[in-house]
């Protein structure tokens, strides 16, 4: 009886203590998410004299719809294929099919996303209704696929480097950790100067070390270097944080395991793969899950450095979310992306959890 009473009062205290955090989380995370979910099913604007209307899954359908089209090379009157001066087959522009063409009403206002050659005389097109979203989605996934393993790997390397009992090692720990403390917006502004096409630091350095052979590159202004530039800078900024998590993991591995390995005559690689890596298993899961989730929310770098350009080569889902919801005052459109991103990242995290689960050996 007395125990039960004590338990109850303890429980009450517990809830009381959890209340501030719970309330904050409810009002600033749970509630906005529920609202976003609701808005994504309507045509809600930031402000409008028109009443909000329920539109069902229209926003999602519009955003995700993809069509296919196969086009044959152009023929002349005799039915022979037309060739241009270089002897290449000529294809009509997709614009002919996607702009008010009565024969292709389902393709109206779609845009070319990808094209493939089918033999020599045919082309196969993938058309998207919301091309910018599709690009933002693929680029964000690409960003995650490159950033996550690279950032985790470099962070582990750094963690092992600074996990040595050397004099002054704290200086290095501080240096590697420093970028993490600086806001991403500030880092982005600084790196924008570093990447500057004409008198940027990076170009100047490369010019110097190549003894003048290197031609300056407009890193953020070209479609083939812009995303790479953002990835490199993002890794530089985030690597210190994950280094610290790895370091914590490294320091939980008992020293006697290493002593045993040394007595057994293990070399460095064997020590790493049989002692260090197994000891870091849970840390590795944590780091991968965190990096993946963080990478999916790619935003300040893009907003400050490229605004999605050049030619949509650095679009990201979160950037589009803000651009639509706030820039174009289309809260419904922004909410639709955010709900999609939530479900997408959630399923990836669950998948990661599944493949890294503790397997029970028979």
């Amino acid at each position: 009886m007395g125990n039960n009473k004590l338990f109850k009062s303890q429980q009450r205290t517990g809830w009381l203590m959890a209340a501030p955090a719970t309330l904050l989380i409810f009002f600033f995370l749970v509630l906005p998410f529920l609202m976003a979910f609701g808005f994504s099913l309507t045509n809600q604007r930031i402000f409008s004299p028109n009443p909000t209307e329920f539109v069902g899954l229209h926003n999602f359908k519009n955003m995700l719809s993809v069509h296919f089209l196969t086009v044959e090379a152009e023929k002349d009157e005799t039915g022979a294929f037309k060739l241009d001066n270089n002897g290449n087959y000529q294809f009509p522009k997709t614009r002919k099919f996607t702009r008010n063409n009565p024969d292709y009403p389902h393709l109206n206002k779609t845009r070319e996303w990808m094209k493939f050659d089918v033999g020599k005389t045919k082309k196969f097109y993938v058309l998207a209704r919301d091309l910018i979203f599709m690009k933002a989605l693929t680029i964000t996934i690409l960003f995650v696929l490159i950033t996550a393993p690279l950032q985790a790997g470099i962070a582990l390397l750094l963690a092992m480097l600074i996990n040595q009992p050397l004099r002054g090692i704290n200086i290095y720990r501080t240096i590697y950790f420093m970028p993490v403390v600086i806001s991403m917006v500030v880092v982005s502004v600084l790196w924008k100067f570093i990447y500057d096409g004409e008198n940027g630091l990076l170009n100047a350095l490369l010019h110097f070390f190549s003894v003048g052979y290197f031609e300056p590159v407009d890193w953020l202004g070209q479609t083939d270097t812009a995303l790479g530039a953002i990835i490199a800078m993002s890794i530089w900024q985030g690597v210190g944080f994950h280094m610290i998590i790895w370091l914590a993991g490294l320091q939980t591995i008992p020293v006697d395991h290493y002593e045993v390995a040394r007595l057994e005559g293990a070399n460095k690689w064997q020590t790493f793969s049989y002692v260090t890596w197994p000891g870091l298993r849970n840390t590795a899961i944590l780091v991968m899950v965190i990096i993946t989730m963080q990478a999916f929310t790619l935003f300040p770098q893009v907003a400050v450095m490229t605004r999605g350009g050049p030619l949509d080569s650095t679009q990201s889902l979160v950037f589009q979310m803000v651009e639509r919801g706030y820039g174009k005052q289309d809260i419904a459109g922004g909410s639709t992306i955010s709900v999609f991103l939530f479900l997408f990242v959630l399923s990836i995290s669950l998948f990661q959890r599944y493949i890294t689960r503790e397997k029970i050996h028979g």
Partner: protein
Amino acid sequence: MKNIKSILLMIFSTIFLSANIASAATTLSMWYHGAGNQTEKDLLMQIVNDFNNSQSDYAVEVQDFPQESYNDSVTAAALAGNLPDIIDVDGPIMPNWAWSGYLAPLSISQDVLDKMLPGAIGSWNGEVYSVGLWDAACAIYARKSDLEENGIRIPTLDNPWTKSEFDNILATLDSTGKYDYVFDVGMAWTGEWYAYAFGPMMQSFGGDLFDTSNGKADGMINGDAAIEFGEWWQSLMNNGYAPGTSQDGGDRETGFLDGKYALQLNGNWAAVPAIEQLGDDMLFLPSVDFGNGPKIGAASWQFGVSKSSKNQEGANAFIEFMLQDQYLAAFSDGIGLIPPTAQSAAMSEKYRPGGPLEVFFELSEAQATLRAVTPGYVVASKEFEKAIADISNGADVADALDAAADAIDADVAKNNGY
């Protein structure tokens, strides 16, 4: 200790004084976008003080906002139902705010409005919603010596450069090899600059953001004239005449004065330092005629009255009070803006006949074209900016403009045609 005392004294006296004013007259609250600019603030405060002293019914109180967050603040206040009596608004945004129900039509006497440049009056749906104390204008900055050296005709308002003439001029200047780029259009200034500065060029080709006959962008912003403009624009980049989207912000500010650029598209706000540095060599040239007349953007920041204001009469009285020539001239002298009436231009130091910036007043009078007057402008401007950036980076012109047309029309449809 002494500091704290004086601060406390200041706080108390402010409270006491403002309470005093409030008891005597109805307070008119006013929001302004120019926080951080002391000259602008002083000018405005002088008008406010003059108004408050000139009558005893109303007392205006000003609150400043930084320009970057001003529009968001107004939106937030509108959502919360906290708009002030008087708000200032960027010209092309005004229809959106009027449509959204932030602004009430003004009741300013027609005599006053008749004297003003069209760019300083904000009308939508047949009503005047905002008026400006100034206008802005763009010109092509050039050095007289450069043009004369290369045998280039100096254009006039009546006889501006034509498209083919301009293409030849760019080629001529480019062949000198003296410049990094021959025509700086200011791609570094992302945002409203694109629609403000490049939109009129598209209009001069015969294109526009919207087809006024049916309110649709499709067929206009991606029509033949607009595509022709896009192709020409892309040729500027492909020929290496103009710096592209990754232009350095610093080069945009000083590139022309440093001699990196031969010609520069810029506004009157940059004219004073240019004259100071180049003196008589400095030319402000009218816009090129691409076939449908030379055009430049019109309308700057303007003042309006909020719909929720309980003191419509007082707010209108204050706005009319602001429109006195002496104040218009003072704003122009203080920050270099174009005075919006002929009388105030004559009174101003820089825009009076024979003044150094007189040409901008004439430009504004002769070439100024309003941006599309519709609540859909906010999105249309953004889509135009994206299309121009993509075209500059080598996108297919028709595809880029198609995309803009569809996005603009989709936005109009989402808002039930505005």
